[in-house]
């Protein structure tokens, strides 16, 4: 049984046509099911728990990267298979998973190639599928309880990634689905009469602990969160079963 969760922004009129095409395609494939819409007035966590108890085995997220991350955190457990239909802006993860946008994603759903995908966990509580970013000022990083990293320069940016789709992909091989997290520290060397030069530091670690004198704001798929110190980041023991396309980019 399939269960579809639509993001709130899909209520806009410009998406009506795309949604109707998707729904008719799903009906053609015989994989249509119950539809729920994310709404600020609805407690989706409770709704999801009740519906999953009634035998839902595949949850399909219709929206963007943020929606996917949100739903992963709302699921009571990671046992249901996840599908993804990307629509609208801020869709980058779909490229890594080899899922085309809109109506074409229904073909991927019907082919049902299931891959186990790692998830990052922040403080044993909050899951993330792609990456998080934070400022590197006054931060101490401990990797695997073996070594500490400190950064001398200001204005550095720290990126911790599980599946990455951002700026560094041409320089450092960050797209992975393996048993480690990637840690990238970017520094910019600013001089008055010379062009800016970027320097990268790159580490692999299984667990990362970050401490600072102040609480640390984290940017997580366009969503800013302030998390209390210390922050523990590791890969979750459980993996999600995700329906992916043939053209997925990770190994």
């Amino acid at each position, binding site marked *: 049984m399939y269960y579809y969760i639509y993001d709130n922004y899909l209520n806009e009129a410009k998406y009506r046509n795309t949604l109707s095409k998707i729904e008719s395609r799903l009906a053609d494939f015989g994989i249509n099911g119950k539809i729920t819409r994310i709404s600020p007035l609805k407690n989706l966590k409770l709704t999801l728990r009740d519906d999953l108890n009634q035998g839902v085995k595949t949850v399909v997220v219709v929206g963007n990267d943020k929606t996917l991350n949100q739903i992963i955190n709302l699921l009571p457990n990671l046992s249901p298979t996840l599908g993804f239909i990307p629509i609208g802006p801020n869709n980058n993860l779909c490229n890594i998973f080899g899922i085309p946008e809109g109506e074409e994603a229904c073909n991927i759903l019907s082919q049902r190639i299931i891959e186990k995908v790692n998830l990052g966990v922040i403080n044993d509580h909050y899951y993330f599928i792609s990456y998080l970013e934070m400022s590197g000022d006054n931060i101490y990083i401990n990797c695997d309880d*073996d*070594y*500490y*990293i*400190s*950064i*001398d*320069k200001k204005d*550095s940016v720290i990126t911790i990634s599980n599946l990455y789709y951002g700026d560094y992909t041409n*320089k*450092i*091989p960050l797209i992975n689905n393996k048993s480690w997290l990637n840690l990238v*520290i970017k*520094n910019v060397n600013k001089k008055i009469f010379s062009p800016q030069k970027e*320097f*990268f*530091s*790159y*580490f*692999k670690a299984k667990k990362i602990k970050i401490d600072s004198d102040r609480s640390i704001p984290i940017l997580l798929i366009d969503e800013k969160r302030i998390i209390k110190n210390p922050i523990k980041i590791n890969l979750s023991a459980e993996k999600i079963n995700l329906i992916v396309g043939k053209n997925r980019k990770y190994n």
Partner: protein
Amino acid sequence: MFKENQPLINETDTIIGPSVKVEGDFITEGNIIVEGMICGTIKTSKNLKVGPDSKIFANIGAENALVAGEIQGNINIKNKLELTSTARIYGDIKTGILSVAGGALINGKCTMNDNKDRTPKPESTKQKKMELKPLITDKQ
């Protein structure tokens, strides 16, 4: 092995950039590029590249190493250690093959593995023993 002025390569597991300081035991299975500062221990089963502005206060173990910066600690390299003209080593060196450029500084004991089988000679260099015949025959 690493070459000088090589861009960030795909096989590199760890890059310690300038303005980054690492303290502790740094043990990995992949290639390491150091441009910053390390205090503690570095061990890798592959290659190590130490950039010209880097400072290492650590004992080092690696398969091959190219050093252009400063190392204060003992170095144990299984295969080849290459020191460029800007390298400064304050510690003992143990390596298989050592290559030192003019201007490099070494303050310490240097030991090289006496392994005869390490570089086998090609077949063409093995010459057969020639029988020496006297050119001048005594006419009696």
